[in-house]
């Protein structure tokens, strides 16, 4: 049912049952918010979205108040603006004034709000709460001093990710966000996915940055600094430079990285091709015996940590293949290095990822080989943009280049790893070839694209029906895992992506991007696949060359040593 309400002396049409805020947005009236989150129920905590409703004694929060017939609303009356301004001033009175040093300087919602409300004077001042900076996690830094207690991180961790690491602790002005027993993040059940970082309106949660380490190694003549970048990075970085979302600037990134001084530039999609080869081999072996299904993807390190903590019983089903980042990292040091007469110890291997959990993954004990870690440091898409800016590179005006050999060619299947469902699609292409000996007529699997939530998808290869399950995001993951454990869900392959949408929507991606931007990145990956000539991992000549020269064949002992690992139960406070 629709009816009219009066907003700022103008009638607007609204739908019964919706909130004032949603009605205002649809009608192009902007009201600021801090705690409000799309798709999650309002909490009414920040009060920034208050509006004046005629006949109501107090201001009402538009995010939670439903529209009522013959309502008369003022969204920017002096009373409302004064209230909003005072609220922000109150927040600022307990905020460290270090914007210039803050991760979120320039893309901070609190800062924006202060600017919009024309706060130019410190009217309210007082004692600030003192907090400890939590640097324990290799992925996420928690700076409670900057926290405005909007609770977005708590809600996203609970309601979207089902991890429940965070909650409000204490009460009143002593309230903080914290973990169980107020432990440091690294000793908590945090899976490092970084969804909390993405929703945090201030710098209270931000990535653990490693730019200094990267710069130091670049300036260290004794080190041979190589770099790899994830498939989703190339379609996302452009946004950091004001270019429209989804534009692929792969070539430009190659050129920029080379200018910065990286000795070798590699594409992680090559690692993804390798991961496809190994995973397909694993599936083929299990198909022979018919046992050990489902094979569950393990290329998402946040999901792996989730499984280790919450469902150690599921670990035997996890694919033993390392993630593309780690596979590429491993062969860089074990194959590329000796091939070029470089001591693996003097190689400094940098990975640029759309992800925060990758920072954690690179530091895992399992990801080292003879005390040499596969990847030395991981930086995010956001950090890359800073690096490029720091080196004064005008990405609008440089010519694209290609990555370096011996991993200079990738298939577009490897590129698809950047989006949810892409991993499966890439695997199926090669699996089809391995099972039937024939190439696919059309490489596209429409059923696997833009899946929302958890979905079971049957696919036919040759005469055989395989059951695939896609989990796009961790919402509802308990049901899936329990289903697998108690055999009510029988599948051959399960792909689990912690971030909704996959790596294109990872925790290391540009801030302030909306659903539309994420979709544009995904589409861009599909477009790349559309025009690419090598559409499957097994058709990548360099992959075949690598096997011939070094790894022998998929699943060989050599491959097992370099490209596989296993995971064990992890004890944390759940």
């Amino acid at each position: 049912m629709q009816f009219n309400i009066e907003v700022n002396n103008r009638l607007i049409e609204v739908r019964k049952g919706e909130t004032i805020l949603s009605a205002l947005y649809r009608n192009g009236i902007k009201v600021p918010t801090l705690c409000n989150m799309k798709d999650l129920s309002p909490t009414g905590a920040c009060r920034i979205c208050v509006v004046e409703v005629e006949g109501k004694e107090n201001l009402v929060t538009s995010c939670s108040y439903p529209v009522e017939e013959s309502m008369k609303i003022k969204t920017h009356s002096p009373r409302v603006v004064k209230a909003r301004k005072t609220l922000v001033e109150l927040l600022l009175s307990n905020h460290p004034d270090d914007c210039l040093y803050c991760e979120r300087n320039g893309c901070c919602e609190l800062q924006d709000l202060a600017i919009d409300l024309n706060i130019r004077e410190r009217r309210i001042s007082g004692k600030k709460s003192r907090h400890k900076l939590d640097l324990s996690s290799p992925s996420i830094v928690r700076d409670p001093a900057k926290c405005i207690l909007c609770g977005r991180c708590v809600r996203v961790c609970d309601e979207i990710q089902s991890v429940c690491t965070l909650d409000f602790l204490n009460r009143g002005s002593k309230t903080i966000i914290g973990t169980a027993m107020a432990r440091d993040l690294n000793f908590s059940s945090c899976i490092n996915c970084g969804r909390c970082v993405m929703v945090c309106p201030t710098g209270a949660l931000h990535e653990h940055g490693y730019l200094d380490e990267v710069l130091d190694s670049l300036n260290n003549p004794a080190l041979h600094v190589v770099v790899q970048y994830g498939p989703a990075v190339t379609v996302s970085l452009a946004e950091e430079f004001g270019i429209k979302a989804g534009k692929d600037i792969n070539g430009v990134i190659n050129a920029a990285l080379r200018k910065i001084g990286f000795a070798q530039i590699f594409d992680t999609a090559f690692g993804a091709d390798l991961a496809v080869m190994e995973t397909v081999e694993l599936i083929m072996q299990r198909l022979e015996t018919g046992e050990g299904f489902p094979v569950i993807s393990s290329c998402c390190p946040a999901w792996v940590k989730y499984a280790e903590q919450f469902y150690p019983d599921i670990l035997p089903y996890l694919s033993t293949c390392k993630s593309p980042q780690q596979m590429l990292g491993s062969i860089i040091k074990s194959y590329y290095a000796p091939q070029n007469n470089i001591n693996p110890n003097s190689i400094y291997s940098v990975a640029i990822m759309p992800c925060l959990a990758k920072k954690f993954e690179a530091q895992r004990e399992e990801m080292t080989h003879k005390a040499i870690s596969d990847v030395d440091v991981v930086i995010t898409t956001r950090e890359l943009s800073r690096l490029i800016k720091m080196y004064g590179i005008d990405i609008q005006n440089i010519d694209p280049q290609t990555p370096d050999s011996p991993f200079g060619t990738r298939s577009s299947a490897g590129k698809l790893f950047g989006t949810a469902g892409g991993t499966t699609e890439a695997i199926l292409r090669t699996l089809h070839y391995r099972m039937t000996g024939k190439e696919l007529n059309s490489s596209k699997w429409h059923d696997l694209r833009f899946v929302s939530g958890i979905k079971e998808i049957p696919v036919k290869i040759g005469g055989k029906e395989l059951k695939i399950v896609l989990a796009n995001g961790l919402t509802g993951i308990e049901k899936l895992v329990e289903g697998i454990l108690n055999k009510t869900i029988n599948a051959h392959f399960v792909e689990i992506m912690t971030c909704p949408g996959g790596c294109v929507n990872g925790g290391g991606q540009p801030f302030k991007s909306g659903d539309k931007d994420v979709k544009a990145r995904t589409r861009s990956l599909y477009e790349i696949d559309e025009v690419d000539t090598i559409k499957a991992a097994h058709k990548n000549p360099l992959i075949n060359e690598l096997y011939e020269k070094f790894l022998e064949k998929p699943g060989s002992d050599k491959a097992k040593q370099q490209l596989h690992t296993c995971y064990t139960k992890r004890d944390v406070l759940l």
Partner: protein
Amino acid sequence: MDNQDNANIIKFFLENVLINDPSGYPKLVEDRLEVFRRNRISKPIIFIGITSSSVCAGALNVKTAIEEYIAENQLEIELVIIGSLGICSDEPMIDIHIPGKNRIVFRKVTPNDIQPILDGVLNKYLPLEMVLGQYRHKFHEPWQDVPYLDELPFFKEQNRLILANCGVIDPNSIFDYMARGGYRALAKAIRNHTYEDICSMVEQSGLRGRGGGGYPTGTKWRKALQVSTDQRYMICNADESDPGAFVYRLLMESDPHRIIEGLIIGAYAINASKAFIYTRNSNRLTVERLERAIEQAYEVGLLGHNILDSGFNIDIVIRKGPGAYVCGEETALIRSIEGKRGTPTDKPPYPTEQGLFGKPTVVNNVETIANISSIVLNGVDWYSSIGTDNSKGTKIFSISGKALNTCVVELTMGTPLSMILELCGGVGSGRKFKAMHLGGPSGFSVLPDELDVPIDFDKLKAAGLAIGSGGIQILDDSVCIIDMVKYFMYFIQKESCGKCIPCREGSRRMLEILQNISKRPQTENGHNTLERFKGVIHLESLAEVMRDTSLCGLGQTAPNPVLRSLKLFRDEYEEHIFDRKCQAGVCRDLRTFYIDIEKCTGCTACAKKCPTNAIIGTPRSPYFVVEDKCIGCGICEEVCKFSAVYFK
């Protein structure tokens, strides 16, 4: 009492008392009830008031003394525990009833008094100085020279509808309650009326919520009843956490069955099969009494499956609030029962639509619920004849602070506020009455010349006041208003749930501003004065935003004491800010110390400890304080062994 006896008594009440009109009780029934009412007794009874408050005053020691006395003298005396009459300052209190004589009340009894009192009374001789008064009874012989309780001004001016049983009956006995008409309202409601009827009855009675908001109770019930659902919940809000308020506590400890009965009727009116009482875990005695009352109600068949053969099922569960002031707010209370942090949620949706576990829920406070049985029993016309046009019935207040008598009183709506001052005996210290503070941390102070405002929801509101939940403090001129407001704000910032910005951050900043006013900086210059002055201006603007934008009642009303005191006691604020003086001598930083030359021995202890070297003199002759240097820390006073240091 063995089980058979108990079963027989229950049968007696169920068959003869609950369902019949008292006017038609056969003599046999009436006689037996007189025994239960302890009016017909065969041996002496000593009643002792045991409540949280009297226990603090030492009632348990008095009880032990009585038991020892009885044992020592091998007397046939029954010892009965009762609640409190409400004159808390006179506790511990005991009543003695010997056959044939009126029941008589003694006040301020200590264990040492037991021997003389009992020796006297049992020999019909009274230590008059400890007697408060005697009960009136037509068949008993009165004591000479002892006033009747109902003639004492304290009781005469009250209208004790709800407190009627408090301090009279044994709160641990359901039979005591039933013998005085208890649970007849429930029987009447459930046998003769539909849910709808009860809602209408309460609506027409004009009963309004006693928690402070004054929302019509019947309307609230009807709203919940009208939502179609498979489950509704009734909740009794007994989380009385206002500092200095003890109305509910006294009521629940003295007459718990009245609450249980009201709650069952309420649950019936909204067709809820489950009810909760949310009380404070720290009040062990309250919880204990309620638990016993509920147990007894189950035993009699007033709770549980198919109560009184009506087909209606009802269970009551006690939830012990683990201590958070904000849980007095209904949405926070609901979340607390659900096992969550007690943070309030936005309304709408109102609890009557989506409350506990998402089901329609009515939350009423203890006093509201205590009114229900009398409305049902005596009818709408009777109830609505009490009070004023828009405020029916009575209101209970607890009075503390600098009052002569800390007490609990029940007054008819429409009585002027001045009566409260009268009943508590005014200021106790012999100092000047300064103000009356209504409603604790969210309340208002009232000046002596404003006390003619009647106790009435609308009239108080028109005067810029609110009735609050019933806690009242009497202030004399030894109370610094800034200190009191600071205390309230300290309380609020500590008890704020921390969810919304205005309350969490606002209360904290307001507290700082208030602290600033009464703090002495190390060096005083014009700049500091300006800061303090600016602070007060901010207080007003912060208060306004806090009231306007806070999520729940706690934040919205938290600025009340500040705003009100700024209006009433502006001069006191200015004195603190500009003259740096606190007349009441409470704000320690603003005190200046002096040394009494008569008492000072020149021992040098103070001079050695003074952090600013403000004390000078020659050893062995009186020292003195250099006023300009004194920062008012009070160390000199602490170290002086001769009490020579004093402050102004």
